[in-house]
């Protein structure tokens, strides 16, 4: 077995990178009932994911996925990189609502929108609406618009190792700084299979 030919490379950190500043004491005090809003901020307008329609689930009210202004905690839904709007009056899905989706050999995720961070700053934190605990995911919008294609999808929907809220919020803030973008912290509520 021959070893590959290699060339060493050094990844260059962009000059613009500024590490996130996070107060560890403030972070440690976060609980599932904490709500927080940055005093002032520019509203991020990230490139959208391919949109997942939700049919009758959306009848109770929706907002853009990265919207900062809705008061109640929202849920959203995704199948792969197709992501729905935020549903601002969330409740468990009925069989009829589930059957509306075409979940063919895929997984329909229900996720709770818990926080949004932008370039190393937390913009908004919503309290928990569900008592499900444990799994957090980072949602990072794509940079590329246009037709859905695997070769151009650079959006992220990836599970964090952190399982507690302070660590997950810290990861979201750090990730937003390291990618120089807006990220959404989600808690995974449910997975539904076809």
């Amino acid at each position, binding site marked *: *077995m021959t070893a590959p030919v290699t060339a060493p490379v050094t990844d260059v950190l962009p000059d613009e*990178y500024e590490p996130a500043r996070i107060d560890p004491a403030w972070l440690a005090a976060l609980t599932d009932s904490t709500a927080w809003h940055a005093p002032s901020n520019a509203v991020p307008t990230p490139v959208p994911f391919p949109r997942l329609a939700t049919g009758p689930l959306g009848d109770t009210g929706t907002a853009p996925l990265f919207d900062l202004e809705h008061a109640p905690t929202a849920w959203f839904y995704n199948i792969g990189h197709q992501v729905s709007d935020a549903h601002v009056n969330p409740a468990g899905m009925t069989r009829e609502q589930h059957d509306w989706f075409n979940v063919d050999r895929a997984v329909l995720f229900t996720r709770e929108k818990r926080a949004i961070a932008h370039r190393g700053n937390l913009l908004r934190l919503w309290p928990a609406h569900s008592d499900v605990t444990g799994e957090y995911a980072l949602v990072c919008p794509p*940079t590329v618009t246009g037709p859905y294609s695997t070769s151009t999808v650079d959006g992220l929907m990836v599970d964090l190792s952190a399982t507690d809220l302070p660590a997950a919020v810290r990861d979201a803030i750090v990730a937003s700084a390291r990618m120089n973008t807006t990220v959404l912290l989600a808690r995974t509520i449910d997975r539904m299979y076809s």
Partner: protein
Amino acid sequence: MSWPTYDPAQLEFPAVTWWQGKRTPALVSQEYEPFPGRVLAPIPAVFPVLDLLGVVTPSAALLDVTHTQTALFYVSGHAISDAVLDGEVRDQDLLDLEEAHRSGPVTAYDKRAVVARGRVQQYWPRARGSGEFLTFFVPPTVHGGDALRFTVPGDPRWQIPAAVVLSARMCTPVLVGSQVVAPQTT
């Protein structure tokens, strides 16, 4: 919105290069299959180093991409050891390392992939009965305190594209491991 130096065209997705080509077996088989062409070896390895203190002998740099067998590495908190090319995970070794470092649990991982510059530079198959979950280790920058860790379930073909995106959008190497559970000693 991203870094001025970021170019999504640099991403080389497994979905494109493997699923449509001959490399699919490399991701699912139990045999090592070298990637064709030149691969990039990320330097420096900026993870805080976990000293194995002679309990286990490290034999390669953590991000080395030239070895052919699936290597091991050990993790305690934020610190990660160099790679260990031969050997199995032993409960006693983990206990000895925990005792020596007194920094919490020590966990062993199969080294499954090194990703850099928006591309999988090398991939190794599962070994030692490691689990179905993959962990992405993103090293801290020179500023420190900004490492990240992701744990994803399922098939590498579906999950490794996320590590590819992380490497390109964060301008960083990403180490991919799968946790090895040591057999109980009697």
